[in-house]
């Protein structure tokens, strides 16, 4: 079994993620089709893009079934930014489109407030971490965020870490078994991001 397959979501920065994995000595492969999906131990659903077209792509390409299937078999899947949002049910970015529905949560637009501009762009600290964070997530550690939408979770135990935007909490990381979603970009987050990817490779430890 090969280690990591990165789904080639059109318009995503899969090469950036591949390059971050290579920094920690992991050779990740970009998956153009579901055909080879079974050959990989871990899957990554990258970010950068827009919910509507990305949701259509997942349905039409068959990657939807692949991800759901891997999750049901407790295999590790990582969603980054939009990838994380696609694990959810719906998004205000594309009314009428459906996510994978693995995480029972909706995605809503960030609200501008107290001088905080949307999209939220930049290096932001985690303001709190859950009881079972793992994945090298520590309060105060900073990661790179670049997003206009956030996951609204009603399932507090699944939330692994929060960040903050305009006085309100932003779900920064969530876990459902071995399926992990992060709003930040570990591949753009310097040492903290590499530590996170290393932890993902070792099953969260």
């Amino acid at each position, binding site marked *: 079994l090969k280690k990591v397959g990165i789904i080639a979501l*059109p*318009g*995503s*920065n*899969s*090469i*950036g993620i591949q*390059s*971050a994995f290579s*920094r920690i000595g992991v050779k990740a492969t970009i998956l153009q089709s579901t055909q080879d999906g079974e050959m990989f131990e871990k899957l990554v659903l990258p970010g*950068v*893009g*827009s919910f*509507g*077209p990305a949701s259509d792509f997942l349905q039409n390409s068959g990657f939807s079934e692949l991800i759901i299937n891997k999750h049901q078999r407790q295999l590790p899947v990582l969603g980054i930014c*939009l990838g994380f949002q696609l694990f959810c049910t719906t998004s205000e*970015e594309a009314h009428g489109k459906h996510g994978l529905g693995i995480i029972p949560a909706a995605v809503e637009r960030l609200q*501008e407030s107290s001088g905080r*501009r*949307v*999209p939220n*762009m*930049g*290096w*932001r*600290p985690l303001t709190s971490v859950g009881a079972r964070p793992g994945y090298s997530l520590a309060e105060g550690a*900073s990661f*790179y965020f*670049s*997003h*206009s939408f956030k996951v609204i979770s009603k399932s507090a135990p699944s939330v692994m870490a929060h960040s903050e935007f305009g006085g309100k909490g932003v779900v920064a990381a969530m876990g459902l078994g071995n399926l992990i979603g992060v709003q930040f*970009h570990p*591949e*753009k*987050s*310097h*040492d903290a*991001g*590499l530590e996170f990817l290393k932890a993902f490779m070792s099953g969260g430890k």
Partner: protein
Amino acid sequence: LFPVAAGGGLTSLAEAKELISLGADKIVLNQAVFNNLGLIRQCADELGSQAVIVSIDVVETPTGFDVYDYSSASVRSGVTVLPELLANVERLGCGEILVNNVSRDGKRIGQNSSLIELVAKSVSVPIISCGGIGSRADFVTAFQAGATAVAASNFFHSHELSYPKVKKALRSRINVRGL
């Protein structure tokens, strides 16, 4: 391991997507402002607003600011031109504005705070302010005027250890990456 924005000569969504697939995290549009506003909307719809930077070249005039079109070396004059253009690109889905003050490019005399204030007032998306940085203090002034991010080129080439020193100067005000 940091975000890459790529631009220059983009005329279609297909080209923008190609840059992203080659490793860019964001794309930069400049000429689209003059000849293809629809491209801003297309890119925002497909790539998400957070991946679309519109770069606007500005020149200072005795009465305010004009928008500069480098390809025809011409200016669009008038006090409402810049604010209207900014509001328009934001409406089309642009997620970040790179405002490049051509009049101060390479001069190291500090950035123009009134330009930053005008842009900050005109849009609610993040602003990258470029043009004129000559010292560490100039970064601080630009952030105080309302810039979300500050860009410099010349300064980083001509001052020793400028990068860690700037980070140190900014650390108490904004969250910057580790030194």
